[in-house]
């Protein structure tokens, strides 16, 4: 099995604040982390490598400092790391991102499986995985809560949808986007950490991928952000204090008055 895990470095959105006067994102001092969902994608890749043999390649597109998450991936057990970095990649939307990542997967051929996180916590789009599948003309399995098995060139998964769980079976190669239900990511090992320290990250540019500027970064992005704003904040409502019985009575007024009563 040759498995590629696509992962993204993101600002820890728990820490992102808006400057209320200028209405801009305050990024100073905001730590960059591995997109939390991608740890589940990586763990899933490592599990199937452990079971079936083969290798796991961690792949990211980003500025040079994004290699930090690739080292983290290697410390957890990834075998190789590829960083797609080029000024031409900057400002990519999900069309250009999935286009660029798909070109890298094609260059890494033969690849049996591409895993991604469910979504990145900065953009929250969940579009990159399906975009890669479309570009590669591979089947896609999204919102996967469990990989049941990989055998004979096929993969079986559970996909969590509104109202239930689908069991799906697909030919490989395929793109699978993973939910956090799938597993519990492992901790970095000591051996992994040492390997990560001495790791040579492979860096590819647009030229290495054979992509024209019109298909990458800002130029290759059909969408454009034209405005950002702070969401309207709700102000706090009425605060009630009192004995449990008094509070329960007010609560019941609100809850049953809201249409819960018969």
């Amino acid at each position, binding site marked *: 099995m040759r498995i590629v895990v696509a992962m993204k470095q993101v600002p820890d959105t*728990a820490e992102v604040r808006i400057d209320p006067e200028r209405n801009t*994102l305050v990024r100073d001092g905001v730590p960059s982390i591995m997109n939390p969902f991608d740890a589940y994608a990586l763990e899933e890749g490592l599990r199937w490598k452990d079971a079936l043999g083969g290798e796991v390649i961690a792949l990211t597109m980003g500025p040079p400092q994004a290699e930090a998450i690739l080292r983290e991936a290697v410390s957890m057990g990834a075998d190789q790391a590829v960083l797609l970095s080029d000024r031409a990649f900057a400002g990519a939307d999900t069309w250009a991102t999935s286009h660029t990542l798909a070109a890298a997967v094609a260059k890494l051929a033969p690849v049996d499986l591409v895993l991604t996180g469910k979504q990145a916590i900065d953009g929250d789009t969940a579009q990159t995985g399906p975009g890669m599948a479309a570009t590669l003309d591979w089947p896609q399995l999204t919102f996967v809560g469990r990989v049941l098995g990989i055998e004979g060139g096929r993969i079986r998964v559970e996909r969590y949808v509104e109202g239930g769980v689908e069991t799906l079976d697909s030919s490989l190669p395929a793109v699978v986007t993973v939910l956090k239900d799938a597993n519990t990511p492992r901790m970095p090992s000591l051996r992994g950490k040492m390997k990560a320290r001495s790791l040579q990250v492979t860096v590819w540019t647009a030229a290495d991928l054979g992509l024209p500027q019109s298909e990458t970064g800002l130029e290759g992005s059909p969408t*454009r952000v034209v405005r950002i704003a702070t969401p309207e904040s*709700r102000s706090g*409502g009425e605060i009630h204090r009192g004995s449990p019985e008094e509070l329960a009575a007010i609560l019941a007024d609100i809850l049953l008055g809201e249409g819960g009563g018969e």
Partner: protein
Amino acid sequence: MSARLEIRTDVCTGCGLCTSACPFGALSLVDGTASVSDACTLCGACESSCPFGAILIRRTGTVAEGISGYSGTMVIAESREGAIDHSTLELLGAARAIAEAEGGPVSALLITSVAGDGPKVLSEHGADVVVVVEDPALGHYLTEPRAAITRRIITERKPAIVLAAATTTGRDLMPRVAKLLNTGLTADCTSLSFDPGKGCLLQTRPAFGGNIMATIVCEGTRPQMATVRPRVMKALDPDPSRTAEIVRIAPEPGELVSRVRLEGFRVLDEGIADIAEASVIVSGGRGMKTPENFSLLSEIAGLLGGSVGASRAAVDSGWIPYPHQVGQTGKTVQPRTYLACGISGAVQHRVGMQSSDTIIAVNRDETAPIFQFCSEGFVGDLFEILPALAKEIRRRRGSA
């Protein structure tokens, strides 16, 4: 289309107005003149902030060619066993509002194994044209056949705008189709409006975990595609006098091929299945202390006909399974009433529930952040208040 930001160093005075105007922190002063980094999205905020005209965004390319001939709004319908999803009716409501400004027709695309009275329902809720692709092989949703058919019909009918619900189906289908059509897709929009001047759909959505709202446009390619968060847009009341033109199109045999096979579908227990659709959610956090205490919540949820939700802290502690989790890494919910018990209201939780109509918080710490944004706050011990509440509801029901 391509665009680039140009800074005229001969005119720039290094005043720094642009650096504070840039929402993305992409501008800085280097040696007394403005300089732009990779974080730039070409949003244009700096261009209008510069009193000296030192910043120009140059747009070049073939916008008009790529977009001519496209008009109207197409809604991708979702249905289950012949019944149209409510989210689809909401999209039709949004599409009608767009059509007022855009001018083109509203169409609905229904791909299904049983159309039933679906076309009639779509028509009554605002579609001018219903395109029906009905085939026994198109029962349960599978990505590849839907993507192939959707792509072909968009190419043939040329809508300027395509909307789908931001359900697991819409969020699976749309990115595949948008990539194949080489056009833009905006995820999980919570507000849409049409700018007649630019001829563009302004698509607004939360990003960065709900910390910001971003407005996104797709100027140079068509259609402009968006998934729209369920329960945000309003469906119109059905108007039985509306009669849409029905267009029946057969799938081409090659379009029905799928490399993915459905082996089974398991309906999850109600409580799990429908927090995203529940109108009342009783949610618990770390303050619940043990898994057993969640029965307090299910009891009240049961009395109110609601579902049980949870914060990540409760899910991570193993007190309740992940499908119940509300928030950034869980589900986004928008019930009429959200009762948060022993939940502090951290931003990652808040983004998943802040659009609820009424948020009620029970927490013993009056400085908890949730009291800053709830509609009604109750300061006290949930282990005393919730049992008293259950008793009170029973008493009122009994005597009513």
